[in-house]
Structures are given as C-alpha cells and as structure tokens.
C-alpha cells in the first residue's frame, strides 16, 4: 500500500522534469566515457567496471586466487570468480585503480591504490582513483569492521606485483632480452645493461596480448624495496576536500531533482493514524505529500516509513514538513524509558548469564579471595552523529533504479533496494559518493530505499535529506549497556578470579524479532578475549530486549567492554595498592601465544572478526609492548598537581593491540580537558602510518564524546535529544594539544585500525579522571557529574 496525498497527480507540478533544471547534473566518479561493449559478452561486474574505467588500455581484474586480464575474466556459472579490484593502464600510461571500499575518513581511497601502485612500481603522479559502484562481483564491499587492509592487503600486493611482472615481460619481449635483465622503475621498464627505457604506456599494446605472468613467478616487494607502503602518502582527495569541490551524498545534483523530507515514526514500530497535509501543500515549492508504508519491525535495513513531503528545494521541503500534521499510534515500544531500562539491565546482570568464556572455578575463587572487589558500570545509547546527516539521491525510471549515496555498503544498498522495490538486483545501480563520516550508520541503506521509493512515486529524481534532528531521533543506536564485574585478589594483590557480566540489546535484534538478548559469541568483541592471565574466569551475557533499532557504531560492543574492563582493572590496581600500569603488566602476565578459541571459550564462533583464529592468536608480548611503550613515552609515574591526572588502559579489538595514557585536567566546574594523550598500537603491518595515526587521534576524540558528553535516552519510547545542542560531542577547547601516537610497525598480519582505538580510550579517560579528582565515574556520560568535585570527599580518601 502506498497512499498518496498529493495534489498534482503522478508527476508532480512540473511533470517529469521540474522547471528548476539550471544545473548540470553532477555525478561523482561516473566517467562520461561509457563503454558500448555488448551486454552478452560481459557480466555485470565487468560492465560496471568498464563503464567507469572506459575502453581501451590494459584492464586487470584482481580477485581471490590471482589477477586476470579483463578479456579473460568473463565469468561463468562454472567459474564464479569475484574480482575485487580493477586496475587499468591506459595507452597514455595513466593508471586508474577502481576502489571497491567506501571512503569515510579512514583514507582507503589513498591507502589501497598506494599499495597497488607501490608494488607496480607506478609513478604516483600518474595514478588516478575511481570509485566502484555496488556490485555483486566485488564480493562484500561493506566497509566496516576495520577490514579493508587486513582482508585485502595480500590481494592488493599481488595485483601490483602482477602488473609489474607483466610490464617487465612486455619490455623484455620487445627488446628480445630475458625478463631477468629488465626492471620496472617508476612507470618505466629499464634494461639494466644498456639503460634503455620503455614507459608503461608504450608497453600496453604488447601487454594486452602476452601470457600473464605465472603466479609462482611473482615477487612481492621486500620491505627495503617499498616506496610508500609503511611510510607515508598524503591523501588523494585533499584538493577537492579543502576547496569545497568534493562530492558527498547531498552534493549530487540531477536535472529535475526534487528534495524530500520524511516524518518518521516517533516510537519504534508506531504507525500513522492520520495525515493532514492541507497546510503542507500550501507551502510554496511543496509539490506532493507521499505516504511511505511503515516497514514491519524489526525491519533490518528497510526504511522506517512515514510521510514524505516532496518539494522543489530543501527549504520548501523543510517548511512543508513543519506544516504537515501526522498523528501516530502509541506503538509497541511506547513504554521504553531509559531510567527504568537501566534498572532492568542492572537486575539482569545481577543474575548469572550465558557464559562466553569459562576457566577454573570462579565462584570458589571469589569466595576464597583475600579481597574481593565489585563494581557496576553503565553506558547509555549513543548515536553516530556523523557530520553528514544521511542523504541519498535516486532516480527510478523504466524499472531501473539508479542511486547515489554515501553508503558504507553499496552491495547491501543494492540488494535492499531490489528487495524493497521488488526489482531484480541487475536493474539496480548504486554509486558511492564520499561519506561525510559514517561510523557504522551508513552501513544501513534505509535512507537509500526512501529516496528510491519516492522517486518511483513522483516520477522524478529525488534527494532524501535527513536533518540533524532526524539523524538524532531516527537512527540505529549503539547499545545501551550495563556491566557487573567482580574479582578476587590474593594476599599479594594478584587477581585470582574474574567474573564479568554484561547486558545490552543486541544488534541481531534488528534482523530477528523478539530476541531475548545478546548471545555469548558477541563477547569476543573485547570481553571474552581479554589478554589477562587469571586462572578462574567467567565472562557472561545476560538478557536485554531491544526497544529501538540497534546498530553498529564504531568499535561496537568493544566500546562498553573497553570502558567497563579498563575502569575495573584500574579499580583493582587501587585495591591492590599497586601502580595501575605495573598492575596491567602483571595482569597480562606470562609471555604466551594462545589460540583463544581453544582456551576457555564456550562455543566460539568459527571466525574471529572474519579472520581465522589461528592467524590472530593472542600474543601477550605484543599486549605488554604497547603498555610499556605508552608508559615510557607519556612520562607515566611523574607527579601531576591535583586536578590533573593520567589514566592508562590497554585493549585488544579488531585484531589490534592498543594502549593509551590519557592526561586530563578537570576544572573546578567539572569540565574535563584532555591536554595530552599517548597511544601505542600494534596492528601488525600498517600500510599508511599517517592515516593510522589520524584514526587513533580521531578514536581518542570520539571516546571523549562517548565518555564525557554523549547520551541518547528515551522517554515514552521517544528519543529525548534532538541535535548537537543536547546530543553533545567533543569540541576544540577540550581536545588534546598533543596526541603522541606510536605505531609499533612490524611485518605481522595486519589488524584493524579504524576501531580499536576507541575502547582503551574510554577506560583511560575514566581512569585519568579518577587520578585527577579521586572521583570514580561508573556511569556515562560524565556530563555534570564532576561539578564541584574539588570540595567533595572522594573514594580514595583524599580531598
């Protein structure tokens, strides 16, 4: 059902194309150089790649198991090979690399081509990057889970090495010399003996027809041969970004495009009772009011539904929506109250849960410890509040759907669009713009579906624009969480037992209705895989029902795991009367390398962050190294005046080890500033260290928001906050003067970079506040809790 309340018939006031067509369309990264290659010859993945790369030149497809020349890469059912990356060398030598991952600030549009170009021996100034569309043949393009480099580094390297070998072979053949006598060097092949040179461009014609170099012959560069990998490379989009030319979601302009604003359910699952659009339709510029059916909850990635105002420009849509009167039924979650829910979660963790990790006899240990320590922690819902509110453009005509969106997962966008509009995925194209921040929000294509639905309804291209209020009130939220930890210490202050229970509504609840709570395997996101050496442990999850859409948020459950565990370890150090950093080292304990899936894990999932458990065992030496590095570099142990303090935490998530020492200054009014932070990260091989550093800086500052300011709460099922005024995030004044990031570079398997910085930062900030003020914050956000701290009695007895 899609009830229409419009006054202008099927195509709106100006027919299919409005009169406001003054702008050229602006379509990011879609080359005008489209290919006429016949449809029968190419599968859709190749077609899409060719469309973007243009005809001619030498095009190579890179996938699991190797590199193929595009002419040989036709896919058949018998050979369902999925290339992820395409590299083209044009006849003029220009190299174009098709980036299959979304750029949201992590730098992948630089790092991925840089690795390939380095291995190719390409000249960076002759390399271009184009953005791939959403395509089945690229495999999952979901840019999440800090995955891009750790999953694809070997493929990128092999791709580059193949091109290099192919260029060398082509030159050797042209010169009639052995391939061993030539060497690729910065976009040329050199005959070592004579110094003769041939440019990559001039070799394209030969390379198109020769045999591809055998895989066994490929030589991945040694560390000494690398030009940029592991060193530095400035981001490729800096000029457009700093001149306002970069194209984000809302910046795509199509001829005749309408702008839509949607009134969405105020409570999860509530439904429209009545619509009065008379005033809305009187607003100049408003063309139509369209009902979007409410998707049954939980709804996964489908739009919430509601009522849309379609107008000729954004302001008219905003004013039209203000004038629209919609009434809603109460909805099944109208009783959701954050205060009451917190009590529910606390009651949940008071009882034993389902174990994800168990060793020894924790009950006995807790009963016999020389000392036991107990603490509870709470973290509210969070919203990504990425600076770019979601927006998408779609044009649906003749049964074909074309969309432009800042999406982390163009492939999911494509499939969800197909499902939602009941069309074949082959008839759906999703172009990826730059993402103005994402943090997990833009993995969900609900907003893309809204645009496509409305385009179909009004018969014109439509941009759906979410306001900040929409973003704060109708998002997918990070789980609210309660934790309860108990530990026993022996007489020497060594931890003998560790009980950790947590309760939080699970992300799975958006995919399946009525789930009772999280499952124990979710604990591997930084709770059941802690690096501690404790003989008796139990890590459990407890029931928690979702009353709102829950979604991935940068670092996911590791955020609250990191906060609770990081804080509790510091509390244990105080209880043991030990230095917090020394205590951490002792807790990590003996040098050992452990496959954690075989060591106390209860029914561990098959993979670990999508990787093999055996590839990423816990290595306590690495965990201790990051701790020692921040101790040494931060001036740990030196005295600070009251009101200033350092906190330390270490956490492992997304297959990387990160330790932080955060220094805070707490003003008498309770304002927390972070003048300085020291970070050490061991993420195996780090391809682009400067971007990794910037991710650590950003993670720390996002953790400041999570810890100090941000909270989404619910009253009568509705989000209480509305915009940055009441959903606050960290700002310049409190931000560090210095973030000293140490990348412990090595040749190990790469780990994640985008996410693992957040969890230790949350704990380290809370611990620093304790060190500065004697106040232990167990409930986030800190907010105004520290007001007047200097005159309060404190837990550590100081005043």
């Amino acid at each position, binding site marked *: 059902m899609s009830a229409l309340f419009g006054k202008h018939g099927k195509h709106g006031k100006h027919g299919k194309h409005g009169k406001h067509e003054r702008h050229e369309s602006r379509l990011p990264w879609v080359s005008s150089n489209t290919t006429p290659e016949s449809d029968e010859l190419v599968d859709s993945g190749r077609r899409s790649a060719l469309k973007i790369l243009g005809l001619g030149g030498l095009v190579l497809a890179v996938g699991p198991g190797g590199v193929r020349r595009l002419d040989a890469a036709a896919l058949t059912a018998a050979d369902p090979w999925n290339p992820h990356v395409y590299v083209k060398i044009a006849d003029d030598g220009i190299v174009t690399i098709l980036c299959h991952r979304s750029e949201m600030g992590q730098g992948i549009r630089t790092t991925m081509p840089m690795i390939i170009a380095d291995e190719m021996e390409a000249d960076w100034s002759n390399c271009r990057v184009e953005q791939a569309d959403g395509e089945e043949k690229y495999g999952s393009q979901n840019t999440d889970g800090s995955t891009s480099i750790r999953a694809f580094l070997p493929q990128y390297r092999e791709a580059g090495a193949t091109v290099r070998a192919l260029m060398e072979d082509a030159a050797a053949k042209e010169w009639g010399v052995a391939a061993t006598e030539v060497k690729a060097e910065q976009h040329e092949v050199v005959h070592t003996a004579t110094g003769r040179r041939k440019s990559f461009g001039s070799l394209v014609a030969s390379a198109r027809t020769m045999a591809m170099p055998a895989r066994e012959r490929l030589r991945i560069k040694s560390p000494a041969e690398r030009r940029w990998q592991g060193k530095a490379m400035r981001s490729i989009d*800096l000029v457009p970004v700093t001149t*306002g030319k970069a194209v984000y979601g809302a910046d795509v302009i199509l001829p005749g495009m309408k702008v839509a604003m949607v009134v969405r359910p105020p409570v999860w699952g509530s439904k429209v009772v009545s619509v009065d659009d008379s005033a809305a339709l009187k607003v100049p510029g408003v063309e139509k009011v369209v009902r979007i059916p409410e998707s049954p909850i939980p709804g996964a990635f489908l739009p919430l539904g509601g009522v849309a105002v379609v107008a000729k420009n*954004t*302001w008219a849509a905003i*004013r039209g929506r203000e004038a629209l009167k919609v009434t809603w039924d109460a909805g099944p979650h109208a009783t959701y109250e954050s205060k009451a829910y917190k009590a529910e979660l606390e009651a949940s963790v008071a009882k034993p849960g389902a174990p994800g990790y168990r060793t020894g006899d924790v009950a006995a240990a807790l009963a016999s410890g020389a000392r036991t320590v107990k603490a509870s922690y709470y973290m509210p819902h969070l919203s*990504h509040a990425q*600076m770019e509110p979601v927006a998408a453009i779609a044009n649906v005509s003749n049964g074909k759907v074309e969309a432009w969106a800042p999406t982390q997962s163009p492939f999911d966008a494509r499939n969800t669009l197909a499902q939602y509009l009941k069309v074949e995925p082959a008839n759906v194209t999703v172009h990826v713009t730059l993402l103005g921040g994402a943090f997990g929000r833009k993995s969900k294509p609900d907003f893309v579906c809204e645009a496509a639905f409305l385009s179909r309804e009004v018969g014109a291209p439509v941009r759906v624009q979410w306001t900040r209020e929409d973003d704060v009130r109708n998002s997918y939220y990070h789980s609210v969480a309660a934790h309860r930890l108990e530990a026993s210490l022996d007489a020497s202050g060594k931890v003998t037992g560790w009980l950790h229970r947590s309760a939080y509504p699970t992300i799975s609840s958006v995919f399946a209705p009525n789930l009772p709570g999280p499952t124990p395997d979710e604990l591997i996101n930084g709770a059941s895989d802690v690096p501690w050496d404790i003989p008796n442990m139990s890590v459990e999850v407890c029931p928690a029902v979702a009353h709102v859409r829950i979604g991935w948020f940068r670092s996911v459950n590791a955020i609250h795991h990191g906060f609770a565990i990081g804080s509790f370890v510091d509390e244990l150090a105080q209880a043991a009367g030990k230095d917090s950093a020394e205590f951490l080292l002792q807790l990590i304990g003996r040098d050992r390398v452990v496959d954690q899936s075989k060591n106390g894990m209860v029914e561990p999932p098959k993979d670990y962050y999508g990787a093999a458990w055996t590839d990423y065992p816990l290595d306590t030496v690495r965990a201790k190294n990051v701790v020692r590095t921040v101790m040494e570099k931060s001036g740990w142990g030196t005295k600070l005046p009251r009101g200033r303090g350092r906190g330390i935490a270490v956490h492992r998530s997304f297959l990387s080890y990160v330790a932080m020492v955060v220094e805070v200054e707490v003003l008498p009014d309770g304002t927390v500033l972070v003048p300085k932070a020291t970070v050490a990260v061991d993420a195996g091989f780090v391809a682009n260290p*400067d971007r990794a550093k910037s991710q650590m*800086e950003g993670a720390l500052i996002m953790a400041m928001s999570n810890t100090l300011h941000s909270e989404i709460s619910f009253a009568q099922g509705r989000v209480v906050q509305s915009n940055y005024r009441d959903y606050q995030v960290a700002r310049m004044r409190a931000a560090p003067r210095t973030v000293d990031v140490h990348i412990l570079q090595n040749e190990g398997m790469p780990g994640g970079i985008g996410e693992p910085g957040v969890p230790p930062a949350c704990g380290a900030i809370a611990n620093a506040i304790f060190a500065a003020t004697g106040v232990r914050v167990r409930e986030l956000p800190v907010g105004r809790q520290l007001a007047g701290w200097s005159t309060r009695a404190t837990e550590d007895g100081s005043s």
Partner: protein
Amino acid sequence: MITLTVNGTRRSFDGDPTMPLLWYLRDELALTGTKYGCGIAQCGACTVHVAGRPARACQLKMETLQGAVVTTIEGLHPTGQHPLQEAWREIDVPQCGFCQPGQIMQAAGLLKNKPKPTDQDIDTAMNGHICRCGTYPRIRAAIKAAAEKQS
C-alpha cells in the same frame, strides 16, 4: 527581489525570502562546498564569509542579505591556494573532510583579525565547529602553520 554578490558574481533571488543562505547556496547556486550539519548554529559546517567575516549560513535568511557580499569555500582563493588550504593539505588534516570547508572559512576569519593566534584564540574561534572525526589537533596545527607562513 534580493540582489547579492557571491564569490564575486552578482546574483538575484526572488524565491522564499525566509530561505536560509545555506540552502540558497546549495540548491540554487550548486555551491555545495558549504555544508549542512545541524541547521541551528551548533556545528559550523555551513560557515561562509559575509562582508569578510565568518557567518553561519544556516542562520541567515535571504531577506537580510540585500546587497551582501558573500564568499564561500569555493571563492576563498581563486586557485584554492589560501595559506590555510595549503597548510590543511600539508598536515593532511581532513579525515572524512565534511566539516573542513566550514573550519577553513572560520580559520580564515580568525587569521584576518589575529595573524598570530594563540592556542586560546584558536580554541575560542573554533569551538563552535564540530569535527566528529576528531581532527581538532591537526586543525590547530594547521592554523599555526599557516599563520607562521603568512608572517
């Protein structure tokens, strides 16, 4: 009819006089470097210069801009080589980049008044800008680097 100058070009507007400058720039002139982040003067993403001073385009109704001279990020420097733009690239400030046009426009206003800003000046001038990616330390460094270079 409202007439104003945007990036040196005379423009006239006869639409809804209550339309904020932000949407006029983005929807009518296709100057999409000026970003929407909050609409309520909380984030600074929409910052442009009006009469040479930083202003939040989401707060300025078109009816108040008769004869105004507006500069957007696209017009800050004819070839995009304002010292701040160069410093931004030198230090590789942006992550997602979405907030950066607004940050740069604000910083340009700051340097005009205070060619040698202190940390405190920077904090005061830039505190109204949100960078959710957390590039604040690099923004601070880039402003200082540009100031250094200018003097």
